[in-house]
């Protein structure tokens, strides 16, 4: 479980980008941070992992407050963290298999043969065909890159999984594959998963707990079933920007 309490973050003394945000992200659930472009989702996620230092507030990983930690301890904590970046961020000088193997080689106490086994297990788990293992990231499609990045993120069996816009640049079907994979893995390993998204399809597909932010402030939170009937104008404007969801709302209120 990750608890965010009264987090404020600004850059170079400017206007705060995050304004007093509090939220609870539970284990075994897909928690989603949603909001329009520029609302501060990425900044919030990067603050939670400590890539940005917050101005004030607490970020508790099962009680351990990250802003209090020294770099050494943050690094130790991060070994329990997996992250899927917006652009996959695979190491482009390494093959697919080497990418997944990398965190294991860095930190796993297992002998090399076991590490390779584990890496292959993770790649199979994300349904990547064996003949792709030797290719470079630039030689596989965007959807496959995302899957490899997920395999790399779960290689060390993290307790916390972060995904920044897992669907950006993917077609709807591939998006669904990635979304379901994230949801399945979250339940399988009981991870605390936080997903950034502004894609309504994935929100309705996998969002267990949803935190809506706008202009850097939390406006609403709840479950995906609440989202259609929430009494919140900003959320309505965001959700029902697309006609499809307007129709869903109309049909469900009848």
């Amino acid at each position, binding site marked *: 479980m990750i608890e965010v309490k009264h987090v404020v973050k600004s850059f170079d003394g400017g206007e705060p980008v995050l304004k007093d945000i509090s939220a609870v992200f539970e284990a075994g659930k897909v928690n989603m941070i949603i909001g329009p472009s520029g609302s501060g989702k990425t900044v919030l996620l990067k603050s939670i*992992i400590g*890539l940005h230092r917050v101005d004030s507030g607490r970020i508790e990983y099962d009680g351990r407050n990250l802003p209090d930690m020294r770099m050494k301890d*943050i*690094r*130790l*904590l*991060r*070994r329990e*963290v*997996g*992250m899927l*970046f*917006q*652009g996959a*961020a*695979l*190491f*482009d000088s390494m093959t697919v298999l080497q990418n997944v193997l*990398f*965190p294991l*080689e*860095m*930190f796993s106490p297992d002998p090399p043969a076991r590490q390779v086994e584990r890496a292959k297990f993770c790649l199979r788990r994300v349904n990547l065909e064996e003949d792709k293992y030797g290719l470079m990231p630039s030689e596989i499609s965007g959807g496959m890159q995302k899957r490899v990045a997920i395999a790399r993120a779960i290689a060390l069996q993290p307790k916390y999984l*972060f995904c920044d816009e897992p669907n950006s640049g993917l077609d709807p079907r591939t998006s669904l594959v990635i979304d379901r994979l994230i949801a399945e893995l979250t339940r399988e390993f009981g991870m605390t998963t936080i997903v950034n998204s502004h894609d309504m399809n994935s929100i309705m597909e996998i969002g267990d707990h949803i935190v809506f932010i706008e202009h850097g402030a939390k406006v609403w939170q709840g479950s995906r079933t609440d989202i259609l009937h929430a009494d919140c104008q900003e959320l309505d404007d965001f959700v029902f920007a697309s006609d499809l969801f307007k129709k869903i709302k109309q049909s469900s209120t009848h």
Partner: protein
Amino acid sequence: MLASFILDSIRTTGRYALLMRKVFARPERGRMFFRQFVQEVGKLGLQSLPIVIIISVFIGAIMTIQTKLNTENPILPAYTTGLVTRDTLLLEFSSTIMCLILAGKVGSNIASEIGTMRITEQIDALEIMGINSASYLILPRIAAFVLMMPLLVVYSMAIGLFGGYCVGVFSDIITVSDYLLGIQYAFIPYYIFYSVVKSLVFAFIIASVASFYGYYVKGGALDVGRASTSAVVNSSVLILFFNLVITNLMLN
């Protein structure tokens, strides 16, 4: 204008110093460091050999010809040309000029590689895994280049002298025996030591300054290009400055 330039320089130097403090940390896993190190020795060191060879052999030959033409004076002994060529190679060309050339090749390579990793979030990915990205990426590059540079410099000296020898063999500008006498006459081994010391400092400057500009890239591909230009320009200026300092300390 001047004040803001000075302030900027101080700020940049401070950021550079902070980065270096992060770089010189104990590697997470020795085996992983060693693997990176070997890779960089190949990429930064061995792959620089062809350019070192080509440039050194030509400069050695050209210097021999020009020196001979400029010292066409019966008072000057026959060994003059060889001696001047040798000392120029040993003192200045094979260390300083070679390093300036390699600042272009190696510096831009390092800055663009690390810069690309920055803008594609690969550095963030390393950090998220709990890895000290600065140390993981930069330390092997500095170590490899600092190790290889003196070898390249000594190699360049030998090849340069060989270039001059070729002039003796393939033309009648100078006789082989005059040249060989000249390059052995009043030989001062300390000059080689002096050049090696310089090359160690220059190699550190090239690798660390290029890493610095690459590591702090913000933006896109264009900014990576800009960073690698800044890396080359700034490390070249620093090389010239430290050349002056070291020469004052060691040859005065």
